[in-house]
């Protein structure tokens, strides 16, 4: 039970525990404890826990908080924003947390808000997550009634107003600063950093943006302590992780496992292995915007540090598995088409490079590949590399492409030489 703190309250019928049920299971005790702690102590606790952001980038959470200006002359209002705009293809982990245990998120947000002395908080939830938004609203309503939100929470000096904002759509809204612009009612273009949102974020005020899963870890860290949390993990990154698998596996799904579980373990023990008649060729370990790994990497522990060593990223930890009956070019086209569609149109490499890549892949898939296409694709991957673009969308977008070109190059070449997709 305690080995799966994130999913401990999940009910078999899929219904969310209401406030009563949540409290009965020990809910909001961590909030009470945290409200009695000095904000700096909470930040230190989170630092010690080695909790790293679960949105994909893996930035140490406590460290992020420590950049927020504190004290009596700090600007107010300060904001806490929960990024629940889960739009990464192949990723569905936050949805489980939002729908299955909304109070856990709210409690986590109150703890985080106290740590950074935030006055207002938002949950920016993906537009299609209708059920999640409804359950969040119901839970927030309950929390207000119980004085866990609003003025003087649970009789302390902490005040927090929590709003649910349903996204109008677009993948870009999931990017930290694009999300802030969207919340302000502007175009969801990303912002340059520095200044970081911790200093000048929502409406120019200090702001922390955290992923749903990150925030949901906070109650158990406060409850059990940093060492316990670190002990949950098999690697240096603390805690458990929601791992997912999609593709032609027997039991696609989502599991809370110790951080650092291997891909083989997830694939074979939890997802039940590949379906009959197909074999594993590769996987995007952390959602659509991570590099392919192959069968050679199945025993790599899935955490932020280990996957980087093999040229990929943990990302969201929800892997998309490619089998031998799926065309890698077609899969890349599908992905690049998505990312090209979702480019906000701000920086040139992204809006031009991704479109170029998607068009080229489509031509190859439709039998119109031409000599030089692979070099052109490699060029676009280089063009969209980290640092060359304004935000992380395009660098992430070309990760599957650049690794597919590395691991499945023959398949790409065959599309050009045979003037057709060998899989059709």
């Amino acid at each position, binding site marked *: 039970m305690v080995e799966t703190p994130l999913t401990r309250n999940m009910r078999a019928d899929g219904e969310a525990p209401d406030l009563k049920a949540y409290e009965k299971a020990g809910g909001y005790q961590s909030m009470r404890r945290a409200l009695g702690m000095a904000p700096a102590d909470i930040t230190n606790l989170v630092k010690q826990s080695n909790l790293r952001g679960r949105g994909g980038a893996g930035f140490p959470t406590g460290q992020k908080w420590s950049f927020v200006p504190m004290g009596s002359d700090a600007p107010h209002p300060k904001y806490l924003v929960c990024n629940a705009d889960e739009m990464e293809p192949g990723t569905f982990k936050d949805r489980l947390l939002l729908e299955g245990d909304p109070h856990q998120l709210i409690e986590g947000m109150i703890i985080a808000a106290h740590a950074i002395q935030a006055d207002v908080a938002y949950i920016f939830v993906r537009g299609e997550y209708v059920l999640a938004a409804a359950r969040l609203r119901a839970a927030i309503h309950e929390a207000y009634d119980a004085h866990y939100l609003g003025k003087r929470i649970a009789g302390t000096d902490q005040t927090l107003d929590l709003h649910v904002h349903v996204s109008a759509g*677009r993948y*870009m809204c999931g990017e930290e600063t694009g999300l802030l612009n969207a919340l302000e009612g502007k*175009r969801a273009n990303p*912002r*340059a950093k*520095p*200044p970081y949102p911790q*200093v*000048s974020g929502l*409406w*120019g005020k200090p702001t922390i943006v955290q992923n749903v899963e990150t925030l949901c870890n906070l109650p158990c860290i406060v409850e059990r302590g940093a060492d316990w949390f670190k002990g949950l993990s098999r690697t240096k990154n603390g805690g458990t992780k929601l791992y997912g698998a999609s593709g032609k596996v027997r039991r696609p799904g989502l599991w809370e496992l110790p951080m650092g579980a291997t891909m083989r373990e997830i694939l074979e023990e939890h997802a039940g292995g590949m379906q009959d008649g197909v074999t594993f060729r590769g996987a995007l370990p952390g959602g659509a915007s991570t590099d392919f790994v192959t069968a050679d990497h199945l025993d790599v522990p899935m955490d932020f540090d280990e996957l980087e060593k093999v040229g990929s990223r943990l990302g969201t930890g929800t892997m998309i598995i490619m089998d031998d009956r799926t065309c890698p070019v077609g899969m890349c086209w599908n992905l690049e088409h998505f990312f*090209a*569609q*979702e*480019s*906000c*149109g*701000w*920086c*040139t*490499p992204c*809006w*031009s*490079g*991704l*479109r*170029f890549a998607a*068009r080229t892949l489509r*031509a190859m898939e439709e039998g119109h590949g*031409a000599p*030089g296409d692979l070099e*052109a694709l490699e*060029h676009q991957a280089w*063009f969209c590399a980290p*640092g*060359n*673009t*304004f935000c992380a969308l395009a660098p992430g977008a070309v990760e599957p492409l650049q690794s597919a070109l590395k691991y499945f190059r023959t398949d790409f070449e065959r599309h050009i030489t045979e003037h057709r997709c060998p899989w059709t």
Partner: protein
Amino acid sequence: MPTLVVDNHPFQVRADQNALEACLSLKFDLPYFCWHPALGSVGACRQCAVKQFKDEKDTKGKLVMACMTAVSDGMRISIADADARRFRASVIEGLMENHPHDCPVCDEGGECHLQDMTVMTGHDYRRYRFPKRTFRNQDLGPFLNHEMNRCIQCYRCVRFYREYAGGTDFNVFKLRDITYFGRQQDGVLENEFAGNLVEVCPTGVFTDKTLKRHYTRKWDLTMAPSVCVHCSLGCNTTPGARYGKLRRIVNRYNGAVNGYFLCDRGRYGYEFVNSARRIARPLLRGDGSERAVSRDEALERASHLLAESRNAIGIGSPRASLEANFALRAVVGADHFHMGMNDADAALAGLMLDVLRAGPASSPSLREVEQFDAVFIVGEDVLNTAPRLGLSLRQSSRRQPMQRLKALKIPLWQDHAVREAVQADHGPFFIAATNATGLDDLATSVYRAAPADIARLALAVAHHVDASAAAVDGLSGDADTLARSCATALATAERPLIVSGAGCRDAGVIRAAAAVAGALCATGRPAGLFFALPECNTVGTLLLGGRPLGEALDATARPDLVIVLENDLYRRASAANVDALLASAAHVIVLDSLETATSARAHVVLPAGTFAESDGTMVNNEGRAQRFFQVLPPQTRSEIQESWRWLALLRAATHRNGDAWESLDDVLLAMGRAIPALAPAVQAAPLSTYRLEGARVPREPQRYSGRTSMLANIDVSEPRPPEDVDAPLSFTMEGATRQPPSALIPFFWSPGWNSIQAVNQYQTEIAAALEGGDPGVTLIHANGSAAGEGPRRAEIPAAFAVRPGEWLVVPLHHVFGSDELSHAAPAVAELAPAPYVALNAQEANSLGVRDGDAIDVTLDGTVRQLPLRIAPGLPAGVAGVPVGLAGMPAMTLPAWSRLVKHA
């Protein structure tokens, strides 16, 4: 100063800038799109990528965007690095995926920043083989063409229009590579500065619609430094001409005045030069007949009339150059020279000049205006009377909230981070006006009242700033609260600015504005005082002096000859008075460029050159004397010549004892000797004898096409280029190749920089002064000793009292319409309103009239029927009529009038 190492060469650079600015200031060719010197950095286009190295040992480095990277001491970057070059060429390749290769038919061709940058990066082969995206373009009104297919998504247009200029009817729509920049639907762009998109857009999405009607490539334009004639601010312009026609105006950077931007009246008003109403040939009238004659015959006739006359008078003009006014003064004698403003306007302008001379507050330049952190506008509708000032004030309004950036460690050039931190906050910005103004969105508080109450509010502010200034009794509670908060804001600001002008036509308003500035200075605040004057050379006219126009109009004067210089007297005084003057004189000589009601009454009409056909000097609102030069050589309009030259010839023909004036230099130098206050004006630009590298400065770019067959129907031989005896400029492409002194820059062009962005190459550093200092000489210096005692003892006017059945009619100004000359430009005229009378809705109800109903307005004893326009901003008891519109006669305003529903 930090040391920046560029490709292993160390340079000392200014600290508070980014690497792109530093590199451009060092005159490196580093391409860019989304960055603009006035708009700052946003990092969108990725064009200015350079390699940054950690230290000398670092050979790998990483690509960074120069525009988003602050310079620091010891920083090492490489522009020449192979990766950086490949990346920059890739950006162009990316942009070219969608950009149509339509340069030969694109109006931007030849001065296109995208062309320049494409060549600069070396990109030459595009691998993209798929369809380009296409858009539907919009009709944006008379000023701008819209061709969205050319868009490279640099976002400069929307940043300028919305964020810098405060426009709201233009935006960016959609996303990815189909990002669309335009209006929600077709329609005239509402912002007064929309025309700047022509220059802000790095390619041909927004091009000059008026230029399209008579299109010429930049390289085929004859250009010269010029000064705008459509208001008093004296923005510097570059007009371009070809084949006797003025083709367009673009901005001429002057770091102290207009910077990078013009208003649309200044950009598009030029077409009056090509108007069908131009007086092209001299006319002689008499005995009911009229005939066009040669220059010589006209001159002979005029000389004869002058020689015969015993009591000739001259009437000058605030829209004519100093030289032309001075030449007329010389022809008729100083005692017989009248200023070309009516006495009321002259008194108001004279009052403003006196205030500025007395000090202690002095007039800031437009550039300096942007540095003030608190603003109080007293009675002036600046966007309609001195439009470019409005753009500068929009920047000052952000000054105070921008102070928080330091603590946030956000550099001023990082534009979107700055705007995010500042949000919609504005510094103290108070507006007292008779009607709603286009800057109200910036205002902390808006006070709408009759001129007397505006003056009273300002005097109350002065009192609350400095208790020794007289208190204003009987102010309403609200007004007093406003006065107190305004006074506190101004007194606690680092640099408070008071803006006023002749817009209300009320001396009390001007005195009250001066009193506020005086009170601030008296309490140790370095206040600025900015006045908008009525016309382009009003200040010059005042400095030159002359008898009041009223004396000439006085029926007892009875001159036998009246010489009118570039002035439609019917716009200055009542028709009855002007009629009487012109009827009483035996002969009338009029020099003007456009046919006017006055020129229609002349016995001798001499076709005068406009600013485009003349050289001369004008003095702007802050007292800056600036020289403008011909772009259309006189020969191309055979009978037209400069007013000063007509008058110099007239003088030579009748004053045989004097030295003849052969060139503009002679007039200038004579003027300097005769009127010491104007002597420095000679220095506004080098005299005609100046040579650079032993040669003249060419008015035509080196790429001028040269010989064409345009005149082959007249002569197969190319005509000799005209000689220019008045200016050190040539009418050809030959001449000095080095950068000329700033006052003589005919166009901005530099190898590799064909677009207006070439201005970077002419500045000491980015967005700073032009090399050698910005052009212009200041003629007004505040005399601190007087300490502004006069204005500070301003009389407190009685409170405005509403009269039953009568309304105080105040003048309303229109950026498009109120200016005489620009109204003759078709594009501007299209946006000018028809005459109307304005009331607020409540007043209209009480009168039983609705929007559009005809109202009888009685002004100057004449009843005029005008349609009603509801103006929600007008206070009770106050009505407004537009001034200066074609068809609106001169009116003495403000004035009381009965308003009656037309039967």
